[in-house]
């Protein structure tokens, strides 16, 4: 589907669903994942249908992923950083449980 040009060095790494992915400094998360052969980025909250980037310019919001624990990040608008943990976004965003609220209950 996509291929990196030879002079576009991929020399930083991050993870997607626990797997290591290499990227070039300055890549967006979306570009790096597409270059690595990823097809589906997320499941929609309405029907669970698979989706991937459509516009790559921040308009369509179809590239939403979870980055370092924060859901609904636009993969095409976020630059890759070494060690970044990216996960597929499944349906509705999960709220992290708050320890304070638990002790209160």
């Amino acid at each position, binding site marked *: 589907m996509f291929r990196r040009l030879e002079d576009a060095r991929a020399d930083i790494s991050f993870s997607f669903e626990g797997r290591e992915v290499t990227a070039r400094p300055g890549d967006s998360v979306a570009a790096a994942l597409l270059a690595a052969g990823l097809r589906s980025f997320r499941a929609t*909250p309405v029907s669970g249908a698979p989706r991937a980037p459509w516009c790559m310019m921040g308009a369509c919001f179809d590239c939403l992923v979870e980055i370092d624990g924060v859901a*609904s990040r636009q993969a095409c608008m976020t630059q890759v950083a070494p060690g970044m943990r990216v996960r597929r976004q499944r349906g509705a965003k999960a709220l992290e449980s708050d320890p304070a*609220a638990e*002790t209160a*209950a």
Partner: protein
Amino acid sequence: MTLTADVLVVGGGIQGCSAALQIAQRGFSVILLEKNGVGRHASGVNAGGVRRLLRDPAEIPLSVASMEMWLRIEDLVGADCGFKVSGQVAVAETEAEFATLRARAEMVASLGYAHEELIGRDELYRVVPALAPHCVGGLIARGDGFASPYHTTMAFGAAARRAGVRVFEEVRATGFARRAGVWHVDSSAGKVEAKFLVNTGGAWGATVAAMLGEPVPLEAIAPMMMVTAPVPPFVEPVVIGVGRKLSFKQAPNGSVLIGGGHRGVPDLAGETSSVDFRKLVISAQTVATLFPVMRDAQIVRTWSGIESRMPDDIPVLGPSSTEEGAFHAFGFSAHGFQMGPVTGAILAELVADGGSNFPLAPFRITRFRENASVAASGQ
């Protein structure tokens, strides 16, 4: 060309649609004029709270009767309106606020009502586990809930049409005269003649009243709402603030609706309004404080709608003081949505029977003039 009907209803919000429906059910022919579209303003864009909790004592009998109608809303309008009984709970963050709630609970009980129940800290956190740990108790109405405001108002409009009401949207009433027991009303589309006139004009209700020679001190306001992207279910009842302005609820699709009193900027002439993010910052701070789990939730949309409030925060509801055959129902002061069903029933009583079984004296249109004359007499 002149259209005729027994009753002309001016204003196609929930009060007007409910009135038109229930008047038509009594066998009258009805025309409804709406200057924009049905549900365009406050009725379509409010928070959707179906609440008896913390109502003004004058409103309690009406609100309680209205709730009975909500419980069989599908029988009335043929749609479920997204109505859910979720409970509504007012949260006290301090002992002083809790004392206020306690006094309130006692007052409501003394009037003979049992729908508001004081709950302590343990029960509060059982009902709303996600609440920040500093709260001390609450006042709950377990039978209260919420509905989808736009779908509800549209359902009332559709039911009215099915009951034979002729609904004209984008038609503005411009002049009112009563001659020989008949109302002659000018509109942007032509003349209407009707025996009875019902003013459910919402924020524009005072304009109509002024044309009948009975001006009232109505203030246009623009309550604001914020909605977040869907999050997993974490709060069942509608949560309202006591010491700060907040109304907080999670919709069935998971999105969280945040409202509760901070106001945007109304533009009555332009028939629009705009949000004021400086005040939404305060709403966000309130939410982040009361529900720490919400800090990462994304605000996807905010909006405001044009509503009106009266100086005493209860509506004008009852007969005109200057004209025969005219009735008012407006100025619900940002909590009229739940009252929609009963308001229609009351207006139907007034038109059909010439009076209502509900205690309407507190809502009389003359009350502001009485106060003014008392003040003017040096009281």
